[in-house]
């Protein structure tokens, strides 16, 4: 058997591949058996693998692995034959044994020989021996048939150096003397022979016997549909395909300009299709199910939880989700870290959990799935969550932030501190998660491969960490944009949406000026906007937000192309000159000194042969100094939905204004339509009412400071300013301009509105945050009062409010339970409190789907009425109404739509799906009156 060194080398590397593959399968199978009980097939598979492992290891002369596998095989035999059950002790020993083999294999790979002594190894080995002995003793008592075999095993173990069960040292000595380590690479003779000569002949003969007889079966089974290929080969293939894609792109470009040559066109089309297919298939060769990585966590969680005395179920979902091998490799360690962290820090001990009233067994869910060309991995635990106080205190102690900064931070911001470098929360550095590397490494590693990490945590309930990663690193889909005549590529993974904004039209999506900074109102959210030309070329040319009425006239028909991007979980708009196609690009890295520019992540060669730079979205945001503070915990739309799903967020946005008083005033952002700034001289008077010409009509201007009549200095005196900030509120068909002293900012607050302090009309209540008290202005209430003085306009919904007959009504109301479906936490809370105050019983849902769930699980007459918002994520009000109307038990339940703005058409649509009326949010009296009307009518009908 004189093998050439090359042949030996290649045989050896095949041996390693095979062993690792088998170990992986063994680990998986053993954990299945542990979880689901003994399954004959799986046990047989375990036995088979163990046997093969033994055989091939001995063939190469790795005696330790061989012997160990042999012992395990012996132990498994009676179980496989159904003679006895798999005991937990034996399972433990198998796990330990597998560890030993893995460890030894790693060592062999590194040292090119079987390790002769290694502390770690000896420890595992000693552990294995003692546990095997334990399990074998059990076996013996269980099955008498097997006494012979077990004795044989015992003898085998015992025959080995002196006393294994005592100290590792003795094992070490023994190994040194009896089993010499082999320099496999220098060894010319048959390794098996050397093993035979080196080990005890008795043992060897025993081992060889099954090896020969079973070899045939093994080889039969190994004829399969797969072959092993070096990853290098696949890498080269991938690179070549990358080049091919580039040439294809160039060819297509060329074909575009030579469209009279039909043959050429046809061929290029064909080539295009083939290349795409080839690219797809080659990418697939490198794809692996993420389960390969996730399943090892079963083991990790099992071991750590045992060590820590915690009971944890690990639930793996979507293990078939496929990812590029390089991505899997890159994401493995970060995931491991997160899981260890969850087990170590996240999950409480069983006693703690009992005290908290939680299930004793904690749950960790690892969930992988595809979404828009990316893979999302969620790690969800139902542990103690991230404690704001604890994290905050730690961060201050470590000098990461100051106390002042901390006091200004939202809960989410504080929680995100765990991703800061130098942060480790464990009070005592444990050997499980506190190993000097923190979650910051997780974040940087994930970001390095173009991924994102986000986190949601509710103290006491649990933590969810979400990782978003690209499928592959080599060829990525990108959007090609133009700025100043130059092409740039933006990775699709960072892309949220594309907008074409026409500032001359009266649509609600516009680029506006907030304190000199461009902002975009997008579905009720303000997003910072920057121009690519400004960032890259220092040109301010296409930031055409409407400064005021006058400017806007000149800017008619100016259209901006805005790309909404997600940078590390905050959104911003990037204005570009032109949006072109999306294309698959092959990203080439840049020289180090160009990476330092931060704005580019790489370069690619376009179809026309030119080079285009790829934009580093995070870098651009950093360079443009986009305020992260205000937008930090505004998750991307995807994350936002998730947030709603997991924990019902209580965060609501307010526009912070100066109402002429020292305390902070705010208007709920959800009722704000636009922010404007007008030259003061342009205000006119219509009768006594201040108005301004605004978009072809008159905008009545109501001054909030004047209305509130706050007795503070300056509040009454007319301050002559050149420009007046106006908050435009739209209600029904009418817009109102609310004059304020100044518009400061948008804040996110999670506290409840306290309605106990409202000394005057125009104030809805107060919110108490960490630092200050914010007074919430009741703009709709103010409009109602002011409007009664306005003769010129008649409001379609200004019927006289039916005053409830308070005393009797309250008692009646208590018989009614109302289901309130509303996605905005502000309105949900606000209306909830109004209804409660009036005496109604209320249950709330955060969207249509949730509402439906609650409804379906309740009895027929549990709810007397449904109040539902129209605009909601996941399932909107109309859809919800349709479902309710078609349901068996609840089709008759009265439904009222509550909304901020509606047109006649919308009312029609609402009525057609089953709403009985439309009401404005924030008009408490009207709401209660309408409810009384419907519910009392209903009652009378029932009596009849």
């Amino acid at each position: 058997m004189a093998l050439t060194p090359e042949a030996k080398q290649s045989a050896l590397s095949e041996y390693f591949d095979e062993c690792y593959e088998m170990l992986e399968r063994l680990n998986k199978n053993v954990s299945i058996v542990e979880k689901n009980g003994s399954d004959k097939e799986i046990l047989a598979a375990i036995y088979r693998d163990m046997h093969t492992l033994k055989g091939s290891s001995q063939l190469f002369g790795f005696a330790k692995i061989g012997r160990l596998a042999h012992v395990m095989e012996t132990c498994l035999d009676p179980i496989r034959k159904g003679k006895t059950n798999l005991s937990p002790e034996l399972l433990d020993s198998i796990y330990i044994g597998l560890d030993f083999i893995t460890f030894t294999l790693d060592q062999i790979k590194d040292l090119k020989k079987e390790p002769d002594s290694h502390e770690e190894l000896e420890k595992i080995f000693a552990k294995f021996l003692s546990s095997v002995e334990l399990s074998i003793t059990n076996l013996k008592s269980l099955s008498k048939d097997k006494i012979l075999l077990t004795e044989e095993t015992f003898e085998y173990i015992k025959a080995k150096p002196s006393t294994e069960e005592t100290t590792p040292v003795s094992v070490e000595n023994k190994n040194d003397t009896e089993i010499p380590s082999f320099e496999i690479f220098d060894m010319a003779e048959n390794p098996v022979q050397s093993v035979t000569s080196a080990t005890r002949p008795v043992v060897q003969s025993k081992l060889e016997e099954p090896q020969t007889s079973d070899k045939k079966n093994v080889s039969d089974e190994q004829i399969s549909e797969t072959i092993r290929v070096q990853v290098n080969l696949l890498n080269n293939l991938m690179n070549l395909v990358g080049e091919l894609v580039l040439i294809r792109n160039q060819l297509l470009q060329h074909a575009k300009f030579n469209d009279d040559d039909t043959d050429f066109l046809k061929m290029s089309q064909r080539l295009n299709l083939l290349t795409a297919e080839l690219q797809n298939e080659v990418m697939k060769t490198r794809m692996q199910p993420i389960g390969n990585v996730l399943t090892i966590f079963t083991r990790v969680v099992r071991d750590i939880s045992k060590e820590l005395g915690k009971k944890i179920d690990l639930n793996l979902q979507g293990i078939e989700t496929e990812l590029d091998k390089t991505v899997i490799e890159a994401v493995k360690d970060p995931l491991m870290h997160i899981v260890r962290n969850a087990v170590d820090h996240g999950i409480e001990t069983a006693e703690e959990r009992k005290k908290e009233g939680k299930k004793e067994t904690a749950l960790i869910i690892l969930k992988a799935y595809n979404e828009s060309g990316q893979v999302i991995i969620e790690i969800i635990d139902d542990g103690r969550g991230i404690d704001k106080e604890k994290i905050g205190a730690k961060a201050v102690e470590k000098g990461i932030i100051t106390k002042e900064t901390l006091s200004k931070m939202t809960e989410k911001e504080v929680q995100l501190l765990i991703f800061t470098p130098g942060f480790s929360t464990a009070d005592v550095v444990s050997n499980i998660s506190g190993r000097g590397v923190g979650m910051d490494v997780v974040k940087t590693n994930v970001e390095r491969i173009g991924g994102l990490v986000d986190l949601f945590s509710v103290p006491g309930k649990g933590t969810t960490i979400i990782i978003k990663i690209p499928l592959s690193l080599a060829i990525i889909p990108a959007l090609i944009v133009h700025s100043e005549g130059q092409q740039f590529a933006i990775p699709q993974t960072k892309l949220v949406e594309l907008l074409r904004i026409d500032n001359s039209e009266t649509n609600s999506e516009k680029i506006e000026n907030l304190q000199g900074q461009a902002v975009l109102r997008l579905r009720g959210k303000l997003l910072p906007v920057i121009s690519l030309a400004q960032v890259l070329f220092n040109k301010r040319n296409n930031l055409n937000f409407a400064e005021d009425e006058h400017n806007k006239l000149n800017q008619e028909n100016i259209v901006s192309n805005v790309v909404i991007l997600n940078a590390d979980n905050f959104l911003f708009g990037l204005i570009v000159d032109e949006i072109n196609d999306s294309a698959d690009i092959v990203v080439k890295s840049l020289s180090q000194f160009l990476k330092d520019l931060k704005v580019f992540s790489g370069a690619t060669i376009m179809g026309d042969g030119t080079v285009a730079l790829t934009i580093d979205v995070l870098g651009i945001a950093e360079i443009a100094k986009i305020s992260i503070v205000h937008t930090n915990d505004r998750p991307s739309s995807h994350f936002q939905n998730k947030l709603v799903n997991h924990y019902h967020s209580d965060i609501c946005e307010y526009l912070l204004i100066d109402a002429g008083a020292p305390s902070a005033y705010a208007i709920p952002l959800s009722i704000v339509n636009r922010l404007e700034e007008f030259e003061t001289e342009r205000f006119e008077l219509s009768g006594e009412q201040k108005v301004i010409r605004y978009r072809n009509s008159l905008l009545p201007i109501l001054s909030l400071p004047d209305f509130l009549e706050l007795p503070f200095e300056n509040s009454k005196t007319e301050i002559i300013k050149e420009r007046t900030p106006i908050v435009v509120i739209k209600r029904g068909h009418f817009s109102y301009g609310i004059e304020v002293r100044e518009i400061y900012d948008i804040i996110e607050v999670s506290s409840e509105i306290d309605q106990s302090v409202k000394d005057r009309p125009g104030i809805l209540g107060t919110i108490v945050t960490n630092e200050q008290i914010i007074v919430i202005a009741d703009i709709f209430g103010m409009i109602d009062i002011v409007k009664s003085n306005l003769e010129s306009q008649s409001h379609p919904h200004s019927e006289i409010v039916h005053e409830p007959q308070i005393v009797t009504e309250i008692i009646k109301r208590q018989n009614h339970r109302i289901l309130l479906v509303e996605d905005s936490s502000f309105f949900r809370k606000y209306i909830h409190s109004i209804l409660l105050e009036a005496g109604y019983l209320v249950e709330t849902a955060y969207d249509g789907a949730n509402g439906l769930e609650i409804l379906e699980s309740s009895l027929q007459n549990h709810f007397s009425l449904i109040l539902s918002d129209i605009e909601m994520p996941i399932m909107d009000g109309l859809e919800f109404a349709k479902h309710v109307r078609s349901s068996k038990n609840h089709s008759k339940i009265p439904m009222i739509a509550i909304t901020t703005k509606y047109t006649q058409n919308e009312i029609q649509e609402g009525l057609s799906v089953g709403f009985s009326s439309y009401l404005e949010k924030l008009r408490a009296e009207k709401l209660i009156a309408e409810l009384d009307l419907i519910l009392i009518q209903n009652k009378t009908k029932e009596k009849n």
Partner: protein
Amino acid sequence: MHEDISKNQEVLINNKSVNTKQFSAFYLDNRLYGIEVSRVQEVVRSMTMTPIPLAPDYVRGLINLRGQVATAIGLRELFGFHEQLPDEFINIVCKIDGMLISFQVDEIGDVIEVSEEDFEQTPQTISDNIRRYMIGVYKISNSLLSAIDVDNIIKFLNHKT
């Protein structure tokens, strides 16, 4: 001037016994420089370039070099000869740390073989803008060749930005 160099070369080639090095000669503002031949991958004429916004002026842009992306460095800008940039230039492409870097020069010269005996340290009087990139000077019969160390250039650029 070219003829002179080729004459020098002949002389040097006849003198094989001494320790020699080969330099790819090039000109900036009619001054003679050289990059060690072993470092040069290829020499190409002007090509379309994609400028890199925000990059320093000596980073002229990116070039598509048969499917590979090369970064073009204008040696004139780097050395501080800003006046009258020529319309045409030559790319000397080198592979440094696995990245393709194209040094753009006014004109390319011949390959010059120099003897180590003719080597001198860069005089202290030379402007630091250039001296920091130089290995030293080779005395050629009727000219001086400033030997440029491409690794030094990249090291400096990486350090600087």
